[in-house]
């Protein structure tokens, strides 16, 4: 039997331009939408990683952001609102040799899909989750999302949101993601670098990209995002989760958004642990089922 191909062996195989990873359909986003920056960054990182498009699986839920896979040359699934994570988990476990990337919105990921997030992270599913965080529901035309500021007036909350916004980065650090980064979507250089590193990382990588929605979010404009973003100190220790959390908490108090790679550690991935089980029982595709059936003889 051939040894299974490892995901890492898929990288740096081809030399393609970013545009070679662009699928032929026109993007559907509004002019000036931050999501376009995410797409640009994603395409650039794919080019740098050098993965064959057919070995990339791009999965999303529902939202403006979740349209992204249509614009990328790859295998792809456009699933249901909030369910990209578990669908991607299934695809990744089925084919650990493929690069699996989820792209989706703040509502998709942290509102309806919020129940799945902890488990992908703590199980360390070997995939990359790119959150296109515009602090609003774009596709449904402007309601508050879990990352919206309290002052924001959504269409369903005309008097302003009533709750504290959540911080995706803090959540993911708590959940045990093994790679956590953040960037402004307009900063293609940093964003694409984080995506590249995240995809190369063995384990669950989470990248929060602050992506402005000029149509429905008047508060968190590109300008606001840009000026709040502050790159991490050069000496930032990415292996200590407490430090990462403190950085985030401190920045928040000061109204800043820390960007760059916040946290990165290694631990066994879910598919590795699954493969371990198979090895432990001497399992293989042609294992004689009669041996199993015989166990039920009276």
């Amino acid at each position, binding site marked *: 039997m051939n040894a299974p191909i490892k995901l890492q062996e898929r990288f740096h195989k081809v030399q393609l331009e970013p545009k070679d990873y662009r699928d032929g359909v026109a993007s559907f986003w509004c002019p000036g939408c931050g999501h376009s920056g995410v797409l640009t960054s994603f395409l650039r990182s794919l080019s740098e990683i050098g993965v064959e498009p057919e070995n990339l699986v791009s999965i999303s839920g529902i939202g403006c952001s979740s349209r992204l896979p249509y614009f990328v040359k790859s295998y792809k699934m456009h699933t249901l609102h909030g369910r990209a994570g578990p669908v991607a988990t299934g695809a990744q476990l089925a084919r650990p040799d493929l690069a699996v990337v989820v792209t989706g919105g703040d509502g998709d990921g942290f509102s309806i899909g919020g129940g799945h997030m902890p488990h992908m992270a703590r199980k360390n599913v070997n995939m990359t989750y790119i959150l296109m965080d515009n602090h609003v529901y774009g596709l449904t035309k402007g309601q508050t999302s879990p990352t919206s500021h309290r002052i924001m007036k959504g269409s369903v909350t005309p008097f302003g949101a009533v709750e504290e916004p959540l911080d995706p980065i803090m959540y993911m650090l708590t959940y045990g993601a093994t790679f956590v980064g953040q960037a402004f979507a307009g900063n293609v250089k940093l964003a694409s670098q984080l995506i590249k590193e995240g995809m190369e990382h063995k384990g669950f990588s989470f990248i929060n990209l602050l992506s402005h929605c000029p149509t429905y979010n008047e508060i968190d404009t590109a300008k606001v995002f840009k000026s709040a973003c502050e790159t991490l100190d050069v000496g930032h220790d990415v292996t200590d989760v407490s430090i990462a959390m403190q950085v985030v908490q401190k920045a928040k108090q000061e109204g800043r958004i820390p960007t760059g790679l916040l946290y990165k550690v290694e631990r066994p991935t879910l598919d590795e642990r699954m493969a371990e089980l198979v090895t432990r029982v001497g399992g293989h595709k042609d294992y004689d089922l009669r041996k199993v059936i015989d166990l039920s003889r*009276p």
Partner: protein
Amino acid sequence: MDLNKNDLIIRVGGEGGEGVISVGDFITQACARVGLDVYTFKTFPAEIKGGYAMYQVRASTEPVYNHGDTFDVLCAFNGEAYEMNKARLKPGHALVYDCPGDFEPDIPEGVHAYPIPMTQTAKELNNVRAKNMVAMGALSVLFNIPEASLREVIETKFTRRGDAVVQGNLKAFERGQELARALKKTDSWAIGTPKADAKRDVIVMSGNNAIGLGALIAGLEFFSAYPITPATEVAIYVAKHLPKRGGTLIQAEDEIASISQVLGAAYAGKKSMTSTSGPGLSLMSEMLGMSFMSETPCVVVDVQRGGPSTGLPTKHEQSDLFLAIHGGHGDCGRIVLSVENVHDCIGLTVTAFNLAEKYQCPVILLSDGSLAFSTQSVPYPNPDDYKIVNRERWDGKGEFKRYALTASGISPMVDPGTPGGMHIATGLEHNESGMPSYAGENHEIMQAKRFNKLKTVANDMPLAEVDGQGAADIGVIAWGSTIGVVREALQRLRAEGCKVKGFYPKLLHPLPVQQFEDFGAGCKRILLPEVNYLGQLAHFVRAETSLRPESYTICGGLPFTPEMIVKRVKEMLA
């Protein structure tokens, strides 16, 4: 009754934890070993620990199709077991009971009573946990349960725990035999002697395990589920054995995650499934629509329990048919199968995978709470005897269009990783390439594609079984484990000269309409017994065929008995 000669039903009852389940299992195994047909029925306490547990074994030299009308022999480990069953003790029945125990039975007239000091003997042997072996020893002598086989089963079972445990249990078993031999047998109940040509190449399995086995035979590669009574054992079985085949099993955070993971794995080219019960199936409604729309195959097993809502989680009911067929927004197709017995649990699970792969849609397999834990003897399933279908995959020629309009409506799939086959699987309405298209005409064409392909499903399955020949005064349509009950009822009715016929569909959606019509054409009246409140299959038969079945519904948490069907048919004939 003549038919039931060589057909004995023993019910063992006691406190959960006293070994009631073991005794039942041992008797079942021993009988199956010698070539008897067995069919068991259990009820579990609602409490986690303790509470009344019951295990009923029916063993026969003839095929048995159900758990029977009632027991012939009751073995009561304690007062609660006696109280629970007292009302069913009828003249002629045998009662074996713990004496001295925690109760003094007031033996009904005509009941053959055999007091056995179960607790006391176990104590004397310094082996209180072996109370059940004392009882089993007594039962074996009193009712001719194959002794040698029982000893083998005891040995096999306890070997792992060391020789001392084996010997301790055997000793208790032997003491039970001696105690019974000292009593005078007054009844004539006895387990039959297997025929010379009895099929001994059998396995004994529960419905839930058999579904797991069927999935393995079908080529299961990915399984994700969330625990739920009474379906959890499907996952437990698969968890044990799937890694041997190199496959992956995941316990997900909830049922929505399970079915989502299943779809992801299926898209990635793997045969994938989940198992659940009603509440979980409700939660999967949205994702099942995605499976249909994106034409991603999946197999969902629903082991039904008493509903609605949390309902009666440990009880038997056949009430998820509405949900299985109609659960999900929009016009949303799927294939729904239902199993009659353990044998079906193996074979129809294979069929479920075959259909999912062929038609690229959700296939829901309905089992039920009593079948889940009923162990039955079935012929040894040779994996090579099953036809296995794999999805049609793109031949790599020309441009790949995931949703190509073909004559059959089935469009070849392609596994990720294949050069040239890149495409999107989407829940949005789309054109042949998968691109979103909301044009009216496109939606009509694509809905027709997805539904038309399902029109041939019935051709891929054997015709629904017709039980009986010629014209009938009463035709009985049944589904699920009710079929086995109807089989026996019709045998009895025919033995009494009634003109009756049975119809036993396993494919419930899309309904094989013509087969229903053909059956109905030969019957004056049609009875449709099912264990739910609303008469769910009857609803679909009325909606989709010209037949007007008369519903006979019960929902008391238990299956029908043959006697109930016999009675109702006779009332109709009267």
